[in-house]
Each structure stands twice: as C-alpha cells, then as structure tokens.
C-alpha cells in the first residue's frame, strides 16, 4: 500500500495542492479510502490528518468504507421520481438486500441514489458502473442485475 501511494503522490510531484486528485487516484486504486491510506498520504505530503479527513468526508465521491465491485446509482431527482424511480429503488433494494448508500456483504454491489444527473429526458436513469441506462424499469433493472451475476427471483422463473 505504501509504495502504491508513494507512486501516486510522486505523479503529482508531492504537491499538496493536488490533494483531491491524489485522493481520487487512491480511491481508484483501493476502491475506497482505507484509513491507513489517508494516514500515509498525510505523512508523505505533510498535511495534517484532520485536514485530510475533513476533505475525505466533505465530498460524497469519496468513501471511507469499502465499495462493491459494481456501482449502481439511481437518479431520484424530480423528473426521474415522477417517472417511477421509487419503484425501481424499492426493487433494487429488495434484490440486493441493502438500502441506498450501502454495499452488499459480499462486496459485489454498492447501491446509491443521486439527486439529478442532468439527463432528465432519459429518466428514470440508472448508472451501472459508469454507464447511463435510460428509461429504466424494474424488469430492466432486474435484467441488469442478473447480467452482473445477481440471483434475481423474477416472475418468469416462478
């Protein structure tokens, strides 16, 4: 871990001003921000740990808990909401067995809601591993989950 972080910081010439991009790279490397990683970044950049913790908790893009292999973000903004996002949210939460903002115990899926992705015409939108999937429905969401290896009890199987 130490070496990987030292390498990332080296890319930014040990410049404190690049703390956010450094943390982004660290998160990409470990899938979240482990405590030891933040301590190491602080020691190498000579930035107080309290300051790094402040930044890591300020931005929602940073996570201090491990995230799943697959990221699912459901838009629950106004347009998506009226087009049925809550039904999809219920469905996904039931299948994964976690609430929005949580990660499944097997670290396969992280499910979260976002408040607007700026593509309301496509609503409801589900972002799966960075890919925007528009006009989402419950059955389409279930199909996507299945494709990613989640066992889904659907009507057809019954």
């Amino acid at each position, binding site marked *: 871990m130490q070496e990987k972080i030292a390498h990332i910081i080296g890319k930014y010439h040990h410049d404190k001003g690049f703390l956010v991009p450094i943390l982004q790279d660290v998160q990409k490397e470990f899938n979240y921000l482990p405590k030891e990683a933040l301590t190491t970044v602080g020691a190498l950049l000579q930035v107080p*740990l*309290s300051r790094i*913790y402040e930044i890591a908790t300020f931005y929602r893009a940073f996570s201090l808990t491990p995230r799943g292999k697959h990221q699912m973000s459901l838009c629950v903004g106004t347009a998506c909401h009226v087009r049925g996002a809550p039904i999809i949210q219920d469905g996904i939460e039931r299948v994964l067995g976690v609430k929005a903002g949580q990660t499944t115990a097997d670290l396969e899926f992280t499910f979260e809601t976002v408040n607007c992705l700026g593509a309301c015409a496509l609503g409801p939108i589900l972002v799966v591993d960075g890919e925007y999937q528009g006009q989402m429905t419950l059955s389409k969401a279930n199909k996507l989950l299945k494709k990613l290896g989640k066992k889904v009890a659907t009507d057809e199987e019954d």
Partner: protein
Amino acid sequence: MSQTVTLTIDGRQVQAEAGTTLLEAARSVNIQIPHLCSNEELAPYGACRMCMVEIRQGQRTRLVASCIYEVEEGLEVQTVTERVLNVRRLVIELLLARNPTHPTLLKMAADLGIEKTRFEVEVKGCILCGLCVRTCREVVGVSAIGFEGRGTSRRVTTPFNEAPPDCIACGACATVCPVGVIPLKDKAGIRTIWKTDYPLQRCESCGRIIAPVKQLEYFAKITNQPLSHFTEHCVHCR
C-alpha cells in the same frame, strides 16, 4: 510601508491601515459590532455572520461581513440599520436553534430584542464558528481536530472519531469555544479531552501540576530544549 485610508463608520471619520477589516476599524473607535467567530489571533474567517454591516456603493447599499471586509478609502459604513438588525436577528435565531441555552447567545439575542428562536430547535450545542479548529491549526500548530462532513451533518471532531494522534491535550479548543461545548476534565492527574485520557505532568520541585505531558513534550520539540527544561521547575517555584 503601510497606507492609511479614511472611511466613515456610523457618520464618524475613521483612519485605518490598508488591509485591515471593518470590524477592526470600528473597534479602534469603540464602535461595537457583535461577533462570534472572529478572534484577533486568527485569520479572518467570516462564518457566524453576526458582524454584518451595510456599506454604501453609489446609489445602493450592500450587506457585508465586517470581519472579512477590508477598509476602503471613502467607504461609508452603517453598523446599526434596520436591514443590518434584521439579518442579525435571523442569524441569532438560527444559532439559537442549534444551541438555545448558552448565555452568550441569549445575551446577543436579548440585545436584538429576541427571546427565543422561531425555528425548530435541534440541539447540537456547537455553532460551527470554527474557532477551535482554527486555534488548533493556527495558534497551537498541531491540527488535531477538524470538521467532518458538510451541510446539516457538519461537525467538529477528531479524525475518524478516534483518539486524535496529533492532540497535545493543551485544551485551547475548549478554552476558545464561545459556547463551551468541548468537554475538558482534569481529575487525579489525568486530563480527559476528545474522549482520550492524557497524564498531567507534575513539577519535579514542588509537585504542582504544570500541564499535560504531551504538551510539554511538544514545547520541548518546537523549542529544541530538553524535556527537563519544562518539568524541573514550574511558574510557582522557578
């Protein structure tokens, strides 16, 4: 060389050094502006918004925070107008919604004719003025504490809510807090702060308590003196 500018505060001509703030200029002529997050030992911050004043710009007036607004040549400042008082009333009511009982806040509210807040009370105690965090960072120099999160869940805490690795238990944060919400307890040679126990050092000559061991170790480090320099004698028996 520093430049002097002349401005008007509440109709009085005031001379001030360029680069200083309206709050400082007002204080120099004994015009009191209420404030909570400003401290002369710390860099201007502008968090509490109690020190709002009205400045004239051409035909219009504008509200600015006097603790961060720098003096300007010929500037016209009003510190007590209906608009200013309305903003201060709103601010103090919002602060009271977080801390409805502290005498400092109640006194400020009473001065503005406010008895209680119109907002739903959600007792947090802390008013997020940042004095503790900034004192730890700028004066003490250890940055043991900081903010966490943002918006309504923003709060002051130690990294990961654990025993703070950089804390020297000096207690400056608890001392500077205007609403006294940082618990600090000295008992039986132990100081408890940020949910962590720190042993207190006794004077090797007279046995009186001097300060937390970690604080003296920090002093020794930054002054490049042996630790014994700070433990052999205290201020009482030196």
